[in-house]
């Protein structure tokens, strides 16, 4: 490929993405599907614009998955990882084993030799880290129960690839095709004895952990001292490349290695710097990866036997979903979370491309089995965002209201007249203040860690999501007088407020808002009070600033209160004028316009703060005139 070709290809890939991704996002299907469709469009079965079906590109773009896991690692502190050990081993292990067993049995029943059946089962048990994590992240579900459990399973699968690569050659019943090293190529450890291999692997892991702890921070400090941003980017990329090469050399998954490196650096002071440097590369490479998956879908093969491919696709997806649902129930997951979890992991993953080609190369699977399977894998990845969108719109909302919490929600009606939803840094202050004044509150929160901490200080906080009707009812909403919505997620706040307004119209509602836009939404819904979370602190800062500048305290205080009144009145007015655009997503431009309007109102405020009674100027002038 010469330079000219390279640029033309780059334009094709980027152009297709630029057209399809916004379109898919607009239709609410998520970016992943947009990339995949872009791939199909430019692929050999679309307009046939990229010659080789994107094979080379896919290989390069797989690196996006590696970068993504590095970023995931950066956000995971070791303590959290340790807490997830149960789900990783239990849930992840069972998922791979049960899925592989079921698929293998079906395959054997359909006439494959057991070795081939087992290999197919193991490979199809893999889910797509790229699709699942990207989608969960995009929907803000990573921190949810479903998100955490999905992550645990994906992590286990990443590890499981290593023993799979080791076991496959033992399942070989055919003569290995040439180039039998497949995806394992470049690894020197194959020629070592088992104990030596283990030692090398262990050494590599210790190297990553030790290096991350001891070498990287001083290196970063030196880089930081240059003050050149691109040096930081270079260092971050070099770090990830180095780990990737090291891992490949010892036969470990590079994704796993960089994930480990990420975890090690999660506590370092350069975490955010690394994150922001790597993130754009991750996004683009993942996009390229999805495009190449789309381009690689062999529609020729599909067209030859559409019934067979389709039934395998449906069958595999069904088996995966059923196993995941069963396991989720076993691990006490709420119904709506189960649905998210099961569908998020229902596709066959990108590892399958590697594993199938390896299996074919090492003589485990014949081409007539492996090739349709690769098509199934690609189709499954393409169908996945659609399934997720369908799940999110149709299935999850139905499960939510009647769902039972994973940790069975322990909410009780304590007979308090106030319910505080969200017992974080906002709700705590409200509830403590109310309690100090003799009004006990029923407290709800979804963060079990937070609840434990509070319990240590003697506060009883119930576990539960206040956006669920049954839960609000259980907390005594029918008898309470007041609901304080102190949850931090603005969308959640609105959801809870709507619920309260619809089902408990007698309940006064005070709601926390993040910014002006959210506050206006809440004003429109109609609540007794809207509180922008940083407004009061900002205004108090302003008052002290005025005082330090020499303004008299009483004047500064009064001025702040006047400012607040004006600002709140302006907000209510703007909310009413916004009218029919209510549902439109607030853009940065819109926020800026609102700020401008607020500033304009400040300038136009010519009234005398209603304190002319303290100003003797008029009286003085009148008395001089009289003379």
């Amino acid at each position, binding site marked *: 490929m010469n330079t000219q070709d390279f640029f033309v290809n780059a334009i094709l890939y980027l152009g297709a993405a630029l057209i399809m991704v916004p379109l898919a996002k607009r239709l609410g299907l998520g970016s992943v599907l947009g990339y995949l469709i872009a791939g199909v469009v430019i692929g050999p079965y679309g307009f046939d614009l990229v010659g080789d079906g994107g094979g080379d590109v896919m290989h390069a773009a797989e690196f996006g998955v590696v970068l993504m896991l590095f970023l995931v690692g950066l956000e995971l502190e070791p303590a959290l990882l340790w807490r997830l050990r149960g789900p990783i081993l239990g849930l992840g292990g069972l998922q791979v084993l049960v899925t592989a067993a079921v698929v293998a049995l079906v395959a054997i029943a359909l006439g494959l030799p057991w070795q081939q059946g087992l290999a197919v089962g193991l490979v199809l048990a893999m889910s797509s880290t790229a699709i699942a994590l990207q989608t969960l992240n995009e929907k803000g579900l990573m921190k949810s129960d479903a998100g955490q459990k999905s992550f645990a399973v994906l992590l286990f699968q990443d590890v499981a690839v290593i023993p799979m690569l080791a076991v496959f050659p033992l399942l070989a019943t055919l003569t290995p095709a040439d180039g039998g090293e497949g995806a394992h190529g470049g690894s020197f450890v194959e020629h070592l004895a088992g104990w030596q291999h283990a030692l090398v692997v262990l050494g590599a892991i210790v190297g990553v952990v030790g290096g991350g702890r001891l070498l990287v921070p001083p290196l970063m400090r030196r880089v930081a001292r240059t003050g050149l941003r691109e040096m930081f980017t270079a260092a971050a990329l070099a770090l990830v490349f180095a780990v990737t090469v090291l891992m490949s050399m010892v036969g470990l998954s590079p994704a796993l290695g960089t994930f480990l490196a990420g975890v090690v650096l999660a506590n370092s002071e350069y975490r955010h710097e690394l994150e922001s440097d790597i993130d754009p590369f991750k996004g683009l490479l993942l996009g390229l990866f999805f495009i190449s998956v789309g381009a690689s879908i062999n529609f020729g093969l599909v067209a030859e036997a559409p019934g067979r491919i389709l039934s395998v696709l449906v069958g595999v997806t069904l088996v995966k979903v059923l196993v995941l649902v069963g396991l989720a129930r076993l691990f006490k997951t709420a119904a709506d979370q189960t649905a998210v979890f099961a569908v998020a992991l229902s596709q066959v993953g990108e590892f399958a491309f590697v594993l199938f080609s390896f299996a074919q190369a090492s003589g485990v699977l014949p081409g007539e089995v492996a090739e349709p399977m690769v098509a199934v894998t690609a189709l499954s990845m393409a169908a996945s965002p659609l399934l997720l969108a369908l799940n999110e719109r149709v299935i999850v909302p139905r499960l939510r209201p009647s769902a039972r919490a994973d940790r069975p929600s322990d909410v009780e009606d304590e007979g308090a007249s106030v319910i505080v939803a969200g017992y974080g840094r906002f709700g705590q202050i409200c509830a403590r203040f109310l309690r100090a004044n003799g009004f006990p509150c029923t407290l709800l929160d979804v963060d079990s860690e937070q609840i434990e901490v509070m319990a240590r200080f003697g506060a009883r906080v119930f576990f539960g999501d206040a956006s669920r009707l049954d839960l609000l009812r259980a907390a005594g909403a029918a008898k309470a*007088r*007041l609901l304080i919505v102190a949850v931090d997620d603005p969308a959640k706040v609105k959801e809870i407020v709507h619920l309260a*307004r619809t089902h408990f*119209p*007698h*309940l*006064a509602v005070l709601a926390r808002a993040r910014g002006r836009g959210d506050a206006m939404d809440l*004003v*429109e819904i*109609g*609540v*007794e*009070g*809207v509180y922008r979370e940083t407004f009061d602190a900002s205004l108090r800062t302003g008052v002290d600033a005025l005082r330090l500048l020499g303004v008299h305290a009483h004047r500064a205080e*009064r001025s702040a*209160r*006047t400012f607040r*009144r004006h600002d*709140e009145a302006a907000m*209510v007015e703007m909310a009413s004028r916004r009218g029919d655009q209510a549902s439109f997503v607030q853009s940065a431009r819109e926020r800026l316009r609102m700020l401008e309007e607020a500033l304009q109102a400040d300038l136009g405020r010519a009234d005398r703060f*209603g*304190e*002319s*009674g*303290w100003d003797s100027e*008029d*009286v003085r002038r*009148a008395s001089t005139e009289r003379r």
Partner: protein
Amino acid sequence: MSHLSSPQRPQLPRRAEVAEASRVLVLLAHPALHRSRVNRRLAAAAARVPGVTVHDLYEAYPNHDIDVSHEQRLLSHHPVVVMQHPFYWYSAPSLVKEWLDLVLEFNWAYGPKGHALRGKTLLSAISAGGDEAAYTPEGRNRFTVRQLLAPMEQTAHLCGMSWLPPFVLHGAYQLGEEGLEAGAARYAQVLAELVAGRVDPAAVAHLPRINENFGWLEGS
């Protein structure tokens, strides 16, 4: 801030608005109403009289940020204004002073163009700890309540309002249930007469208090 209203749902802000049929505006000022014995009873009795609007100033302006134009709207609408409060240090709780300073603006309430209150009537309704004897030249307070209310009387005069002798409930600390009940009933009676427009300021001007000498009206 609410747009949906439901009668049984608690509401913010809670302040009196202009009601068309209302004739008498009671400006209630007590900084700790939950501790008050007399003023709470009086205010409750007043609120039950048709044609009376009770405006709790400490409820409306907990930060002393008086909404001047709102207060002026209320004043303009009502022919009779009652200033009801405890007689703290021979005058009133501080918010009453703030209210006078800010609401009675130059060229609105007084001054060459200030005619907004002209022809209206002002009544002070006061609870006092000391008994009647204490508010005499011989008593420990040395002045009568009327004398001590001279600033208020002069304020009314400057604004062109008629000044009525005050409604005073003496011995607020000692009043028993019966006394409170009787006082509240008498207060309601005075307010009802004011609503009906049956009180002639000139005819009562000589009285030291409007309540104890209320008998002159009872026959009519």
